[in-house]
């Protein structure tokens, strides 16, 4: 688990770009997907997922349980870890809503990207230390992967 004040999440530029493309494509609905990486807090790639929300896809997103299983299988099969999920907030700020908090899981990152009039914007990363605790923001650094640092972050907590 990530520890300390404002812990860092590192993301590969390709993954960040993929999120921006998927979020713009989903607009005006919310887009979503899984975050995969070789270690805690190191996102190397994403899995785009369908927003299974039928009635209010502009302001809600849902990942179907079967999509969750498939994303996790994919991570496991490739020796990666399912680190969390991203979703977009069309024409809303890149800040988690009370709805996001209600569904947040300790141990899974919540990454939010704002999309304004179709243009992807700010991206922020969050997690919840416990089921009853509020979101805490994480520093998000979009930079190529450096294996030595990932190894350091892999230290158990």
């Amino acid at each position, binding site marked *: *688990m990530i520890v300390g004040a404002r812990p860092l999440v590192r993301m590969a530029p390709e993954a960040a770009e993929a999120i921006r493309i998927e979020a713009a494509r989903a607009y005006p609905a*919310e887009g*979503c997907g899984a975050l995969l990486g070789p270690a805690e807090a190191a996102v190397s790639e994403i899995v785009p997922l369908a927003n299974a*929300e*039928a*009635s*209010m896809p502009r*302001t*809600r*997103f*849902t*990942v179907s*349980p*079967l999509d*969750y*299983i498939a994303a*996790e299988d994919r*991570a*496991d099969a490739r020796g990666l*870890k*399912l*680190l969390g*999920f991203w*979703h977009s*907030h*069309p024409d*809303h700020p890149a800040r*988690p*809503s*009370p*709805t*996001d908090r*209600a*569904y*947040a*899981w*300790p*141990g*899974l990152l*919540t990454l939010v990207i704002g999309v304004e009039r179709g243009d992807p914007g700010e991206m922020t990363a969050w997690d919840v230390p416990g*089921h009853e605790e509020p979101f805490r923001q994480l520093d998000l650094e979009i930079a190529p992967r450096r294996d030595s640092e990932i190894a350091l972050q892999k230290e158990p907590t």
Partner: protein
Amino acid sequence: MSVRVRIPTPLRPHAGGRAAVALPGATVRAVLDALVAEAPALRPHLLTEDGSLRSFVNVYVNGEDARARSGLETPVAEGDDLAIVPAIAGGALEAPAVDLSREEIARYSRHLIMPEVTIEGQRRLKRSSALLVGAGGLGSPAALYLAAAGVGRIGVVDFDVVDESNLQRQVLHDTTWVGRPKLESAKARLGALNPHVHVETHSAALTRDNALELLAPYDVVVDGTDNFETRYLTNDACFFLKKPNVYGSIYRFEGQASVFWPENGGPCYRCLYPEPPPPGLVPSCAEGGVLGVLPGVVGGIQATEALKILLGVGEPLVGRLLLYDALAMRFEELKLRRDPECPLCSPKATIRELQDYVAFCGTGRGEDATPVEEIGAAELKRRLDAGEPLEVIDVREPHEWAICRIPGARLAPLGSLAERMHELDSARTYVLQCRSGVRSARAVGLLRQAGFRRLLNLRGGILAWAREVDRAMPTY
């Protein structure tokens, strides 16, 4: 006997880092009990204090939702794959944190045990809102069921008062409310049915000036209107606001229902009916009658669709027109496509704002430039008593004639009038009469085209006669 249990990533630290474990058990519950016995730290993540599955946890057995089967009692067999799946959802919508009280949980228990609803869906209903346009035949059952189901905020638009003739089908109102505003009885009745829902009343006719403002604060709109102006207005306003419009209509023994929701890929009401029928061609329920229970069925279908939309479950009645024939007791379904030329919802749209619906539907002054000359009921009575050579032609149907008639009137139903014109003498003066004055105005137009000139329309029809001349006459 052992089952493979998949542990989701966020819970693996509580299960010794394992991704899957093999455990014995004949039901989901037995397997999960074995799991938490082996890894007690998992328990608070999976089960509530009373041992039921937490609402943010799904269990899938061989790719199927256990909640859709028998929940924790779902049987499992050797070699089955049991996946624990965290619910992943969220979104920008700032939902106020709502929770259900003990009373609400008891009240909605038959919902909560359904996998398509659950406590999460019930919370969602509580957070959601629906607007009923009209508290009449369709609005009555729809409002009752939406309130009973726990939709948190229910708006009702109406400006009418309860009339005795409403009670045969408008089950929201009862005998004690005759003569009082429908909104007052709606508020009292819905509040008594479910004090946990908030009922908002809007005492107004829906117009182009207030429609957007009235509809905007609601998640779904239920169209229970009885006239074309309001139906087109509701359709257009829902389109501009991107809201689902749950449509229903009724006449005699026949009903229709659909969900117009271009935002969700479906057609709008204008794709189905680009233009309203000529005024007077399609009789209203007031003119043609309606089986009292018919709006119960159609309004119930509308409530069902509204609830499905609010819950986000099932297949909405989008792009389909459901036809119900109560006499034959048959349902039929027509496929509805978006009109690529639709003036409202297609790329070629020409309508950019709400219109003048009275002019659009031709229900204002009428399409005939010559105004129909009218006579009042009291005036007709006076002139008949004075022995003037007037003849009253009643253009209603024989079964209406059987209920009440003006003494000395001659029956010639509107549909047969053209064939029977030869019975009339164009030198005489005729007073055309129906129930309320709408059909008889059409009759005046028909006769005028045939060359008759001395024609009067009884203003307000036989209803006016019953009110002003013969108060003992039964009306309908």
